């Protein structure tokens, strides 16, 4: 199937609920994984994979496709979910996540999973890869875009800033970096571990165009992505202000949910919250 398909906001919201249920379930079944960041990124990924990214789930290496690079590889439950929901592999396969002989490794591996552009998990590397792809696309006069998602915590890594410098210097206007700015990393608040602000100014000083959005507001996400194509001679950063653990009340803004699986009781509670949210949406 070919995307984007231009879903309405309501349709996107429904898919975001469905995606959250998959994420919680796969991490619960695996007994380990990273729910916090998966939930902070999922609204953006749903909007991107259904409404903006040019891709074909039945032809993952289609040459004209836009590329999506997940630099913060640990939130692969979110990416596996949107890949399954858009048809790269059966949704059933999600339950094999992190299990022996599974195609869905604990961190993404391009040689195992359809739709994964590059293996990642060691932080800080994705934007450099995105730049290399973008340079190659430009050389080939291919008009595709390269989206790369990084985390605010991940931006501690020096290589990210090397790559930000490279993209700005070479005016890679086919690169879009999405910063999942959820404000938390393993050791605490990003502001306290290592402050990133003023991130917008920092990026602008590297010759980037910066768009700030509320990363769980689908209208803002859509409006943000719409602005991307009009930017010329500069790479674009979308700083998405998000909430770690978004959508599950007891996970929101709690650093301990960075990398831990829910137990049975927590799983049931989380699923019940999502189902009641879904019903509420249906009622609208």
């Amino acid at each position, binding site marked *: 199937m070919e995307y984007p398909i231009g879903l309405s906001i309501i349709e996107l919201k429904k898919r975001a609920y469905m995606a959250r249920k998959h994420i919680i379930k796969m991490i619960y079944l695996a007994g380990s994984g990273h729910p916090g960041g998966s939930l902070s990124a999922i609204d953006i990924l749903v909007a991107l994979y259904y409404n903006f990214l040019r891709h074909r789930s039945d032809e993952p290496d289609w040459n004209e496709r836009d590329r999506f690079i997940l630099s913060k590889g640990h939130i692969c439950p979110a990416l596996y979910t949107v890949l399954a929901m858009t048809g790269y592999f059966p949704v059933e396969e999600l339950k094999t996540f992190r299990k022996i002989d599974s195609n869905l490794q604990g961190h993404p591996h391009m040689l195992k999973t359809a739709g994964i552009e590059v293996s990642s998990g060691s932080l800080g590397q994705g934007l450099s*890869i995105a730049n*290399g*792809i973008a340079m190659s696309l430009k050389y080939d006069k291919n008009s595709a875009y390269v989206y790369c998602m990084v985390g605010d915590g991940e931006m501690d890594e020096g290589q990210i800033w090397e790559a930000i410098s490279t993209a700005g210097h070479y005016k890679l206007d086919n690169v879009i970096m999405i910063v999942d700015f959820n404000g938390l990393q393993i050791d605490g608040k990003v502001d306290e571990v290592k402050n990133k602000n003023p991130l917008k100014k920092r990026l602008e000083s590297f010759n980037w165009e910066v768009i700030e959005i509320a990363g769980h507001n689908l209208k803002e996400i859509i409006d943000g992505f719409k602005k991307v194509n009009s930017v010329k001679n500069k790479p674009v950063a979308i700083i998405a202000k998000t909430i770690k653990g978004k959508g599950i009340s007891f996970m929101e803004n709690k650093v301990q949910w960075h990398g831990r699986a829910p137990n049975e009781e927590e799983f049931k509670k989380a699923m019940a919250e999502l189902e009641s949210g879904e019903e509420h949406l249906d009622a609208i």
Partner: protein
Amino acid sequence: MVKVYGEIPTRFGYGDGLVELGKKDERIFVLSADLTSSTCSDRFQKSFPDRFIEMGIAEQDMLGTAAGLALSGKIPFVSTYSVFVTGRAFDQIRTTICYANLNVKIGGAHGGISVGPDGATHQALEDIALMRVLPNMKVIVPADYWETKKATMLAPYIDGPVFIRFGREKVPVITKENDHFDFGKGIILKEGKDIAIIANGLMVHQALFAVEILQKKGIFATVINLHTVKPLDKEMILDIAKLTNGIVTAEEHQIYGGLGSAVAEFLSQNYPIPIKIIGIKDRFGESGKPKELLEKFGLTADHIVRECLKVMEMKNGK
């Protein structure tokens, strides 16, 4: 007499190989980390500016960018000093490039102690060990100008990541343009039944000189130029071990983890015989002229002879 056809730095072979490749294959890209002329990548840059990318002093970013190019069907060569590319960018090489078996070629310049006066910080003595341990990585340490050029020109057509390690200084040219150079295959340069010297890089010509000294003592040595450290030419090593029952390895690298280790790991499990490993003995280098350093650190023909005599004694049960 050892035949020597002049002296040329091996890095010239890398630069010239890149230019030849650039002419015949439009997929070839070259990336440099602010060391374009000393790695001889400027030769490619002048001929193919559209396919040359200056990365600045940012090795980690360079390897990631190269990975992106490889993912898009290009064949990138990254050029910088071996000590920086294998050390600074190890994680990028491991997790982004080797894990996914990406088609990235790594030109490790200024390998070994013979870098000279720049001293320990710039002398790559652990690079072969670091690259050899990575799944999917292939490791080539050519002996002279022609071999470096041939290794460079072969690399794009070897699947996945390839590391080519070469040097800064002039070294004797001991092979000819038309000599065979097959990836993964050792080259027997001398045949003798008493002992075998397995060497690569600039230690190959030292091994050839050592053979002449040994001959005067009535010892006949085989010399193998084992330019490919990984994958190892197991067949040739096993054959020569059975013939000579004693081996000395010689390399411009730490005694741990390099060519000597590779040979010893293999033979100890398959055909254990006395082996001596010549290299840098678990210490850092220092400043000095290349020749002085090779002398001081025991990387000469005389040193090879001494170790051969020890192996002969071990062989004879003394």
